[in-house]
Structure formats: C-alpha cells, structure tokens
C-alpha cells in the first residue's frame, strides 16, 4: 500500500503557492514600510541640513566671510555633542573654521551631497560615525561643508531592516508550517477514501469511508460515497437475489418438463398417453417462455428506451378499458368491480404498458379478493397530479412485506400454490418508474390499495 507523499500532494502544492503569494505580498508591504520610515528619516536629515545652510547663507550674504566664520564658530561651540558637522576650508583643503579636523577624503572638490565616515568623533570616540553633508564652493576658493552625524539614523535603519527581515522569515515559516499541517490533514482524509476504495475493489464491499463527525465537506463527500456504496451493495444483493430466484423458479418447471418427457419416452406408453404428456410438456415450456419474456420485458422497460413511444393519453379511459376487460372475470368470481373515473386525466405515456400495469394490479385484486368482495378502480386528480388507485377488500399485505412485493419472483404465498410468476408487480413498478410516477401499497381497511401517483402532464 502506498500512502500519498505529503510533498507531492496537491494540497501541499497549493500551500506552497499560498506561501509564495503571501511571502510576496509581505515583501511588498514591508518594502513600503521601509521606504516610508527610512526615507522619511533621510528626508528629515536633508531638510535639517538645508535649513542650516539657509541660515549660514543669510549670514554670509549680510556679513561676508567674517560673519560666516563667526557663526560657524558659534554653532560649533553651542553643539558640543557634534550632531552637526561644519567645516570651512581654504583652497588646499586646510580647515579654516569648523568641528572637522580635516576635509573628508570622500569628496575633494565640487559641490553636492556626500556621505562619509567620521573617526574620533563626538562623545563616543571609539565608534566610527556616519555623516551626510552638502559641500559648496565659495568665491575666493573657499570650500564649505555642512552636514549631520547620521549614526543614530543608520542604527534605526538597521533595526527596521532587521525587524522587516524577521517578519518576512516568520511569515514564510508560518505559511509553510500551516500548509504542511493542512495538506497532511487533507492527504490523510483522501488516503482514507483511497484506502477504502482499494479494499472495495479487492472485493470487500462492506467497507465504508470513515467520517469524523465534523460535518465538513470531506464528511459530506464520505457520506455520499457511503450512500453510493450502500446503493451499489443493495443493487448487487438484489441482482444476486434475482438470479438465485430465477434459478430456483425455473428449475421447478424444467424438472417437471423433463419428468413428463421421460415418462413419454417410456416403452409401455400408449400413443394417447404420449400425446397427453407431450401436450403438457409444451404447456410447461410455454410457461417457462412467458416467464423469460416477462423478465426480458421488465429489463427492457427499466432500460427506459420505450419513452420514445410516449403519447398523450387519457388515464381514465385506460382505467375504464381495464375495468371492462376484467369485469366478466370478477363477476364470474362473484366480486363487485367498480370504476370511478369520471374526468379525463391526461398524461404522457405508453398506453400498452400502462394497460399492462393496471391489468396486473386488477389481476392481483381479482385473484385475492374473496367472493362478494369489492374491487374499486379510481382515477382522480390530486394536487401533485393524476392519481390512479386499485383497491380491493382481500387479505391485503402485511406492512413489513409491502416493499418486498416489487422484487422479482417475490411471492407472499411462499408455498407457491396460487398460479403466477411473481413478476407482475415488478413489471408494474418498472412501468410506473418509466413514467416518472410512484407506486405505493397502502392499507384499504380491510384489503389492499395500490396507488399510482403521476406527475402533472407537461402539455
């Protein structure tokens, strides 16, 4: 037995895809957060530097070089922590005034933004500092550098990047974990179904898919599969039952037939006796043939191919014809046969088959109703559609066997003394189902009532 590999299961692939998608969206989200926070801090730094420059430029414009030097010196002393960086240098980059000991190597000439490192800076001399500054070329070949120490900023930026990286890692790990767990669960449920179907294919039809009572979609799937299996098992059981019954029911007349033919073959039989035996043998063969024909007929009706012969017909008229056909037989047996079908009831159907079905029902009623009993045929319109009923005052059928009477060869009278093939009601049911109708066997208090409920005609 091979269990499904979790890594190859479709749910795991789904989980993996889900992980990639959620990882991607987390990366986009975190990227935006990074851009929003770190970018904001960068812009803040630049804005501070610009503000400083505006102040210095104002002094320079008003008081010239001397003013600029004075204000730089003043600011340096006012900011001993060294958060701001100033340097005024001459042509060969020697510092004139400011808190930088020398011009940074990073940028020797020109104007613009530069990033550079500071050593032996601020209060914490042991660490290397990061700085960002803007450089200007003043006339008389002086150079000015105005900047900020951005060590704190860099630390915050690293913190943010770290936090974002961890966030991404945790998200991916969680997605993977959840995906694995989920797919393992789903794989287990599917494996259970696969396992059951394999066992059934190996021949154990009593196996059922386990359910967990959670009522989820897998439980519903399992329930449906189990119901399907029950239906299949029932069908197979009834097929077996039918073939058993066929074998049993046909063996008796075949044996009888053989006995008669063997007697006829006997050496001392007179011609008249031989003829008699052969006649009886022919009758037995006829009976066998009609049983086979009835079986074939039921099978053909059940296949549903006869729907092509459906025409619109009047059920009441059909019922009156059946009643007229059976009336002589009923009165011959001293029964009262009444028909109550005053209104036309239109249905789509096969008139020969419906006649046959109704005839079988009436035939049974006539067979089992005692002398002076009453057989009532009625055709009425109910809410759901036309309804035809055949009721008698015979012995009826016990409630517990009412479903069984539709099985092929089932006979209430197990001694099989009354004539009949045990196929009559099977045929009725096949015909009724072909017409999309339902048949119910009910208690007539006393007697039996067979009710055929049709759907309202579409036309």
């Amino acid at each position: 037995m091979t269990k499904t590999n979790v890594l190859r299961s479709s749910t795991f692939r789904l989980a993996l895809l889900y992980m990639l998608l959620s990882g991607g969206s987390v990366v986009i989200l975190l990227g935006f957060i990074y851009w929003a926070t770190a970018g904001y801090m960068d812009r803040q730094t630049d804005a501070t530097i610009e503000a400083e420059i505006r102040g210095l430029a104002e002094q320079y414009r008003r008081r010239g070089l001397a003013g600029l030097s004075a204000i730089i010196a003043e600011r340096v002393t006012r900011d001993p922590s060294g958060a701001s960086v100033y340097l005024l240098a001459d042509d060969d980059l020697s510092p004139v005034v400011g808190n930088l000991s020398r011009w940074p190597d990073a940028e020797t000439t020109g104007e613009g933004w530069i990033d550079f490192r500071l050593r032996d800076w601020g209060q914490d001399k042991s660490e290397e500092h990061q700085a960002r500054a803007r450089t200007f070329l003043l006339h008389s070949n002086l150079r000015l550098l105005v900047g900020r120490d951005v060590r704190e900023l860099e630390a915050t930026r690293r913190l943010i990047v770290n936090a974002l990286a961890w966030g991404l890692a945790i998200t991916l790990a969680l997605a993977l974990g959840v995906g694995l767990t989920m797919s393992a669960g789903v794989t287990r449920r599917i494996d259970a179904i696969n396992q059951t179907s394999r066992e059934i294919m190996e021949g154990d039809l009593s196996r059922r898919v386990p359910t967990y009572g959670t009522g989820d979609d897998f439980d519903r799937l399992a329930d449906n599969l189990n119901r399907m299996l029950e239906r299949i098992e029932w069908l197979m059981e009834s097929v077996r039952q039918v073939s058993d019954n066929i074998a049993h029911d046909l063996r008796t007349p075949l044996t009888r037939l053989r006995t008669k033919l063997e007697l006829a073959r006997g050496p001392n039989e007179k011609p008249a006796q031989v003829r008699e035996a052969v006649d009886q043998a022919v009758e037995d063969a006829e009976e066998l043939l009609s049983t086979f024909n009835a079986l074939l007929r039921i099978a053909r009706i059940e296949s549903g191919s006869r729907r092509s012969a459906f025409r619109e017909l009047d059920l009441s008229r059909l019922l009156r014809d059946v009643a007229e056909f059976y009336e002589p037989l009923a009165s011959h047996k001293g029964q009262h046969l009444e028909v109550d079908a005053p209104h036309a009831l239109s249905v789509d159907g096969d008139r020969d088959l419906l006649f046959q079905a109704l005839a079988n029902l009436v035939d049974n009623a006539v067979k089992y109703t005692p002398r002076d009993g009453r057989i009532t045929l009625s055709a009425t319109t109910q809410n759901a559609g036309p309804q035809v009923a055949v009721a008698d005052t015979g012995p009826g059928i016990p409630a517990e066997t009412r479903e069984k009477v539709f099985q092929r060869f089932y006979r209430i009278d197990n001694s099989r003394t009354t004539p009949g093939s045990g196929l009559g009601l099977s045929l009725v049911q096949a015909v009724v189902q072909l017409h999309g109708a339902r048949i119910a066997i009910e208690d007539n208090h006393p007697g039996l009532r067979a009710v055929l409920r049709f759907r309202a005609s579409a036309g």
Partner: protein
Amino acid sequence: MRVLLIEDDQQVVSYLLKALREVGAVADHAADGKEGLFLAAGEPYDALIVDRMLPKLDGLAIIRTLRASGNETPVLILSALGEVDDRVEGLRAGGDDYLVKPFAFSELHARLEALLRRGSVSSPETRLHIADLEMDLLTRRVTRGGQEIQLQPREFRLLEFLMRHAGQVVTRTMLLENVWDYHFDPQTNVIDVHISRLRAKIDKDFDSPLLHTVRGAGYVLRDQD
C-alpha cells in the same frame, strides 16, 4: 395455399416447413434476403413469411421493394424485436401482420389464415352470417334463428371479429390486439371468460354450438355441419 418462407435460421426453417406442409400448405424457402426477394417477385405466392433480420437484404427492405413494384402479396413479419415501435415500423414498411419470436405454430397458422382471408374480402360487408347466426353491421343487430341476441359493445366487436374469421382458428393474442386494441399479456385467461359469456349468449339456447375452443391454440367460430 402457396407460401414463401424467407428465414435464415435453419432450425426455425425446418420446423416451419414441416408444420406448414402438415397443415396442407405448399411452402418454398429462401435462406437470405436477395434470394427471397427474387423468389417473391417472380413467383405467385398466396403469402410471404419474412424474417426481419436476414443476410444480404433486410426483411423490411424486401417488403418495401415488393410494395413499390406493386406486389400486394400479404406479408407476415417474424421478428425477435417485439416493442410497439418495431411493430409499427414493420407495418409501415408494408407488412400486414407482425409476429414476435418465439411463437407457437398455432399462432402463426391462425395469423396466416387471417391474412389469406383478408386478401379475398374486398367489398365492405354490411351483413355477416354463419349457419343461422346473423350480424347486421349497420343496425348492429345480432340474431340467431330469427331470435334477437343482446350484446354489449365489446361482445359485439368480439363476435364481429370471430365472424369475419369464421372457420379459422383465432388466438387469444389476436383477439387482444384486434378486439381490445391493446398489446399486452394478461396473466390469467380473462379472454376465456369473455368467450364463455359470448358463448352463453349465442350458443346456450341452441342445439348446435358455433363457438369452439381449440386446445392450445384459441377459438374458432364454425358451423358443425
């Protein structure tokens, strides 16, 4: 009676040929559709018995070809296909009657006789009679020996069918199809009860019975003399 049997099943053929000769018919045989059509078109037969499924040429095709060429010989179709649709298809092709396999020879014989009779009755009759039993189809009156007999509508149709086939054996299936107009298979012999009712009306008070039961086959309306 000269009959052509077009059938490819050798067992059915030998059985039918023997049985047909026993009832006094002259029977020819063709084992495939082509030979059958050739014989049927060339020889004057009283009736054709045609199997539906044949090698070389389908039974219905034979009938269609014959009818198209103006040949009106009565045709009895034999077939394993017994549904109403198949029957209708067979009769539409020009067949006169349809018999589903397996069948009893008595059934085939009765139907064959009916077909031969059908050929000879051309003018519409208004009166039918056998011995002293008379039926007026216009006034729907039935008398025997001048004495009026009251019949139910269905009994009238039953008697009419029997009288139209007087002297021939009529099977129960034939009665169901022609008098009741339903193709079905009654579980008990309800037909027998109908017949005995009719018999009570037309035979009971008279010396010579006209309606007889033929064991294993059906009924016949026949004058004893």
